């Protein structure tokens, strides 16, 4: 078998188990989306599987002690470093890492063969084992955090900042009410219209462009990092983002002129004004009025209310 031949360390894994796992990976990632995939593409996919990692995982699943030792020795640091990234302290990280190992080994027993049913059974070999372990740790970290603080939306830390910003402080840093109510209302309406148009134009982007925008603007990644997630070079990401800007401007202008009845001049002026204002936060203007929240923020606001 080619995959076994590619492995640098031989493992006592039965062919049937290996074939079953490879078939499962093939079905999941290739044949489900392309049932008529040509043979060369199938061969390419199988050749790209991580042979060593897959054999190691299968050997662990079948209770090979040496494989478990190799797994622990080879990936202990990976799991711990991922746990540190997902935790706030060293003790928490170690606890998370321990729980990950327990999950990998399996806390339950399979009815079929009486062996522990661990998460290792879900490793396909498509990605590296290290990356898979990081993703496992990341997911467990998020789940764990949610269990600890059920009412806190952990994924949008910036929401809390905005929420805090939107609350009247009374210390003079941000006035609780605008000095001119009519002007404030007008600005709020304009800001809401712009925000809505922006949100819709982002939603209309194709998947890759939308992911790029979210990575770059919402998640705060650099272009290099966003490009790495997308699997493209930084320059490509930059060019793509420039193109996305053009598309979005057209869409926003179209929405504002057709649905809000603004002229092109008014649209341009409002966009310029909003952009100038947005040293701060457009969303905070929109949410400064109670009960008005852009899509996606309502959950955060509601989640905070019981705490208050």
């Amino acid at each position, binding site marked *: 078998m080619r995959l076994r031949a590619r492995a640098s360390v031989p493992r006592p894994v039965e062919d049937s188990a290996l074939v079953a796992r490879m078939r499962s990976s093939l079905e999941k*990632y*290739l044949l489900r*989306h*392309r049932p008529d995939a040509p043979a060369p*593409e199938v061969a390419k996919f199988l050749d790209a599987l991580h042979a060593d990692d897959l054999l190691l995982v299968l050997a662990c699943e079948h209770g090979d002690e040496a494989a478990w030792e190799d797994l622990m020795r*080879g990936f202990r*640091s990976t799991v711990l*470093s991922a746990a540190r*990234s997902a935790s706030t302290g060293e003790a928490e990280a170690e606890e998370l890492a321990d729980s990950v190992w327990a999950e990998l080994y399996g806390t339950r027993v399979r009815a079929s063969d009486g062996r522990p049913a661990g998460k290792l059974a*879900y490793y396909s070999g*498509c*990605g*590296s084992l290290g*990356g*898979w372990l*990081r*993703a496992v740790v*990341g*997911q467990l970290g*998020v789940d764990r955090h949610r269990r600890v603080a059920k009412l806190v939306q952990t*994924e949008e830390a*910036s929401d809390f900042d905005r929420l805090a910003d939107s609350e009247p402080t009374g210390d003079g840093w941000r006035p609780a009410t605008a000095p001119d109510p009519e002007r404030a209302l007008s600005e709020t309406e304009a800001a809401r219209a*712009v925000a809505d148009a922006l*949100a819709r134009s*982002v*939603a209309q982007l194709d*998947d*890759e462009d*939308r*992911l790029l*925008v*979210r*990575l770059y*603007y*919402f*998640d705060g*990644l650099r*272009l*290099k*990092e966003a*490009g790495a*997630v997308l*699997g493209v070079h*930084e320059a490509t990401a*930059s060019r793509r*983002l*420039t193109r996305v*800007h053009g598309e979005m*401007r057209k869409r926003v202008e179209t929405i504002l002129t057709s649905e809000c009845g603004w002229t092109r001049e008014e649209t341009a002026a409002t*966009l310029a004004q*909003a*952009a*100038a204002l*947005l040293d701060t936060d*457009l*969303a905070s203007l929109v949410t400064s009025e109670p009960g008005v929240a*852009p*899509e*996606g923020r309502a*959950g955060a606001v509601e989640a905070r209310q019981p705490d208050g």
Partner: protein
Amino acid sequence: MKQEFDKQLDSLLRGTRGGAGEVRRAAAAEHLSPDELSAYAENALPQAARSLYTAHLADCSDCRRIVTTVVLASGAEVAREARPAGVADVSRAASKSSWGARLAALFSPRVMAYAAPVLAVAIIGAVALVILRGRQGSEAPNVAQRSDEEAARPGSITQPSPSAGTLEAAPAANIDAPAPQTQGSPAAAPGVGTAKTETTTNAPVKVKEMAQDKSNELADADEFKTASPVPKPEVAAAAAAPPPASSQPAEAVPVAPTSTGARAPAREADDREVSRQRRSAADNAREAERGEDARRDAPEPERGRAMNNNNERAERRVYDGKTKSDGNVPSETEGLASARKRQGGPATGGGRGAASETRFVAGHEFRRQGNAWVDVNYRSSMSTVSVRRGSDSFRSLAADIPEVGRAAGQLPGTVVIVARGRAYRIN
């Protein structure tokens, strides 16, 4: 790298981050599995599956965060500092490297490939000089005494020596001298002797200097050519085996002692041994310089050929301990193949020490470029991820891709390795 963005849109999007149409996935069942996330992060998915997951990631901040974490932690994070690949990069990396790395570089195989022959020649020369001087000092009275006895003996054909030192120096100096001149000629012996005294004391030093100073190479090479025309391809054999017949006359030079019968056979054997050692050393240095000369003097196409020849010779002389540990001499075709393979390397590698320019580590073949070991599969068009040894990123990378860790551990200096479709620069 950032192009001219639409500044208004840029500001608006920055201001509305997190609020523009983000869809929250309420149920965990909708999230991607760790396997899907890691495969996506490593760009290992077929296009159709990847497109599907891209759509999910664009709208799911949880999964996006995990993918981002995996991408950045696995070393796909692009180097913070924009640095062009190439020699400048290597030199910068070298300047930033630690003392340990510098020491490691100092004793690296490439440096040792140059240093070892030079050191060997210098040591042999020094030992020979010390031995000769010691004998000169201890045997001078005996020689003088023998000379007196020979002079007193009737029928002796030997003229009284001008000095014991001259007599003693003669055998060693005969490396460069044609044999017939010393056939007991009364007139020639003193003259040759004095000339040889100077040569004797300078010979090891000269060999050493030749290896270091290229400006004297031509003159020295000419001098050696007249002394012993060793056929080029048999250099290795010449260095290891007894001297060829063409250089034998040098050992017949000590005429005065042999003709008079005053010197013991053991002493002659010693002299012969010293001469042979020095000839071997001189041959080695001369051969290296001939190759260098040929490369330097030849026009460009011929220079490559000269480098080829030199590499072939070097291939015969030096065997990589790892790849040829069985001690078998590689065949002619193997030598040629490996030498030609190395010719594909960068000009910085040069011709000397070519046998140590490539190494096989962790299943990868690396070529030496300056202070860096570069994977032969590396292309400059690849986006390179820079990772510093000992950093968290490096540990993560080594944990994920063990071959990277092994290569970085076994190779000194900067290591550029191509693994899983990406290039990693380990500093």
